[in-house]
């Protein structure tokens, strides 16, 4: 029951939700050996389609108080470029494909995705190139995301109180 988890975060990402539910992408997921797709679609409910075939099931929801179990059990995470989703996937050492939302006015999110793609810890893609990024995913070797420096966190708070 190999799982792909797609998350759009707290707002919406119509074109991504529509894309991952398309026949084209479902065929790619199946070819890569996945059997289940779960989509956290936020406000993009109209773009979501649930399907259930013998080999592949697609389910989804708008929001849940915790997405931890999905991140934990996913083998592949496809996410919008929000820092929360990126961190949740990378901290669990999941294979991560980030799709930037070009329709956002303030496109600073792309900076983060680009920087992390340059570090080699995730794959950066777009809605139109997602299928080919996924087709190549097994030939890409991703680096390990550097761990949190908890002594740095502690030193930050020293001498304050």
């Amino acid at each position, binding site marked *: 029951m190999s799982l792909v988890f797609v998350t759009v*975060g*707290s707002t919406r990402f119509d074109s991504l939700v529509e894309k991952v539910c398309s026949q084209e992408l479902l065929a790619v997921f199946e070819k890569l050996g996945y059997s289940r797709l779960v989509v956290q679609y936020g406000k993009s409910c109209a773009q979501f389609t649930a399907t259930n075939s013998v080999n592949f099931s697609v389910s989804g929801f708008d*929001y849940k*108080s*915790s997405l*931890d179990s999905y991140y934990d059990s996913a083998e592949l995470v496809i996410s919008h470029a*929000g*820092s*929360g*989703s990126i*961190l*949740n996937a990378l*901290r669990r050492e999941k294979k991560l494909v980030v799709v930037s939302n070009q329709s956002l006015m303030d496109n*600073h*999110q792309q*900076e*983060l995705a*680009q*920087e992390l793609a340059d570090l080699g810890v995730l794959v950066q893609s777009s809605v139109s190139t997602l299928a080919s990024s996924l087709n190549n995913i097994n030939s890409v070797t991703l680096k390990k995301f*550097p*761990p*949190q*420096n*908890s002594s*740095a*966190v*502690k*030193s*930050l*708070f020293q001498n*304050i*109180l």
Partner: protein
Amino acid sequence: MVVFGSGGHTTEMIQILNGLGVDYFQKISFIYSSQDILSKDAALNSFRHKNSKFILIPRARRVGQSYFSSVFTTINAFMTSVSVLVSTSPDIIICNGPAICVPIVIASYIYRILGLEYSSVVYIESFARVKTLSLTGKLLYRLSDKFVVQWPYFKKTYPRSEYYSYLV
């Protein structure tokens, strides 16, 4: 006092607090905005602190709200921030970018000028901000006691900023 935002801000804040060790502070007040119950749930799911409470603050401006009505909602948010500061009198205010930080930090700054209360403000810019500060970051750059960024590119443009490798 820890100020939560939505989505990524909350994820980052939880990571930072976990890195610090949740018992680092004897007492924590978590501030969250009225449109963001998810943060409260996320915090409750992530850690339990023996002496913590959650305080709700109304949003200054919703996405898409008209400017005229946002004058009143901003005043309301500001007044709530002032009363929350008075009732909790925190030693330290930790915020990491959501807009609800702004009225809280401004209120604490006014208190400090008046000599009524002194809270240290630690601002930690979001991990998402690689080369440009958020609007909240720009507004609070001079009002924070410690202004922390999570990427090393800000030293030239914002000399007061401090960088400490991976915090999240």
